């Protein structure tokens, strides 16, 4: 997926969120509608216009004590309102690597 680090002009093509990593431990977090951060995608504020996206990103970027590297990411919103990551990159960020960790693939005892 084109790295969002290469995003220049902000233009969204569908429902989007702002995501970042938590400063102290690097965990994936999402910007909420209450000017906060949550580790749950369900809590993410959804924007639907490029202007709103820019505003949300600006506000997120200003709040950099607790968060690092915020950017805009697409989501899929189902009819029932369930929110899913909108591309492979965001899926990987939420669910983890798509490969087995080394101990697992070798059939060796797994570390914590």
């Amino acid at each position: 997926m084109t790295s969002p680090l290469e995003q220049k002009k902000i233009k969204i093509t569908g429902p989007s969120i702002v995501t970042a990593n938590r400063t102290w431990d690097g965990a994936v977090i999402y910007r909420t509608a209450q000017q906060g951060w949550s580790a749950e995608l369900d809590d993410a504020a959804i924007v639907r216009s490029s202007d709103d996206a820019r505003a949300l990103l600006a506000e997120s970027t200003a709040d950099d004590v607790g968060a690092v590297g915020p950017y805009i990411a697409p989501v899929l919103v189902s009819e029932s309102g369930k929110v899913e990551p909108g591309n492979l990159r965001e899926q990987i960020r939420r669910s983890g690597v798509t490969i087995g960790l080394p101990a697992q693939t070798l059939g060796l005892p797994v570390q914590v």
Partner: protein
Amino acid sequence: MYAYDEIDRTLVNERVAEFRDQVKRRLSGELTEDEFKMLRLQNGVYLQLHAYMFRVAIPYGTLSSQQLRRLAHVARRYDRGYGHFTTRQNIQFNWIKLAELPDALADLAEVGIHAMQTSGNNTRNVTSDQWAGVAPGEIEDPRIWAEILRQYTTLHPEFSFLPRKFKFAITASAHDRSAIKIHDIGLRLHKNAQSETGFEVLVGGGLGRTPFIGKTIKPFVHGRDLLSYVEAIMRVYNQYGRRDNIYKARIKILVHELGVEKFAAEVEEEWQQMRDGALKLDDDVVEDIRARFFYPKYQKLPHMPDELKQASADPAFERWRKNSVATHKVQGYSIVTISLKPVGGPPGDATADQMDALADLADKYSFGEIRVGHEQNLALPHVAKHDLPDLWKALDKLGLATPNVNLVSDIIACPGLDYCSLANARSIPIAQELTRRFANHDTAELIGRLHINISGCINACGHHHVGHIGILGVEKNGEEVYQITIGGRADEKAELGTLIGPSVKYDEVADVIEDIVEAYLALRATPEELFVDTVKRLGVEPFRERVYATR
């Protein structure tokens, strides 16, 4: 093995204390991310997709068993039980917490390991031949000079904020295992007519968006002038390298835009003004560094011990020995390569348990020393031949004896989209599938030496440009697709690969690679003709025809 003294240890500890203070100020908000980012990068701390990544330096790829055990400890205590060895002889941990990093660094500092300048726009790990000091025919141990360079470039006040990253590599053998031609500064150690040690200096090699093979700017720089000459190059780069565009900021672009002659002239002009200054290396300074390198007290051993003769009856042992064991410069000893490319495994990874066990084996069989190669494999550099059978049994139990070194399933891959925030596509699952397709050792041996390199984006950390087969992951309409090149090489005959045809979908990559290999087997002049030589002889066309005939 270079022995850190009080002076070296003090510097590392001072650095840890400084970083601890910087982390504290970041977490309190006193430092913004904009102010902190370059500081954390200069301590090897990246932000990846799911977490921070911590890149620890393994200077010129040499580790003691004590150090390897400490890396295992970091993997267990601060990460998820494994580490990844990189194409620059470093190790990476993928799940580290920023708040715990100062403690991890302190733990590493106790055994003389640090993470200084493993990222950031400064000078990076000085890499070298993983067989340095033990390879037959080596002119002299390049690690002496790599250590001199390491010290010179560490926390250099003038060159800590360069236009972009800066990488050194040094080789002292006819066969270049250090890939010096794809480095910002590549150094080929050799002797002049008076038998004095010096370096051919190449500048401007590098991959990424605009790959270049390095160009020689001076055929012989005397050892005593190495640091002053390097300082001249760095000063020219620091002042004139582009800072307006990060994709045009490497020294390779400066060399290209000025032209090699003009660039060499600028360096020469600068150097003439400082060559007799404080950076001139006295012989006794060099000897002092040399004296701190530990070399084993080798025993007088027979060329063919009985243990080896007996073990040769075991076909599995023989297969491994013929594949992974190389000739040592001292009779009766060998260099053992440890494959970190098991079938189905992520290339270059090792678990904490494997690291600990390997440290024990190094103590028992290799004078306590381990090496890291840029092919993402490890090596035990001083194994007595009579110990090979026992060593092999132990390695096999640990999953570290896959006899695929330098073969098709010995794949070099970057972490890719599974880990890296710069990536466009995944690389590890491609590598895993390829190891499964080529799991049959007879087939792999039949194919012969074949280097596959996989990068998940144009930054080329997998060195795909110089792979015999190179695979580059890109994104098209939200999908992962892959461009495939053939005919690249990274050694003394370094060249960039050629695109074979239109890009290929994720699910098809393994099929295409199989077709390329089949084409090679059909086209090669003799079984001894390597893949890369067949491509050189015939060009890309015959491969392109066969691969794309049905696509």
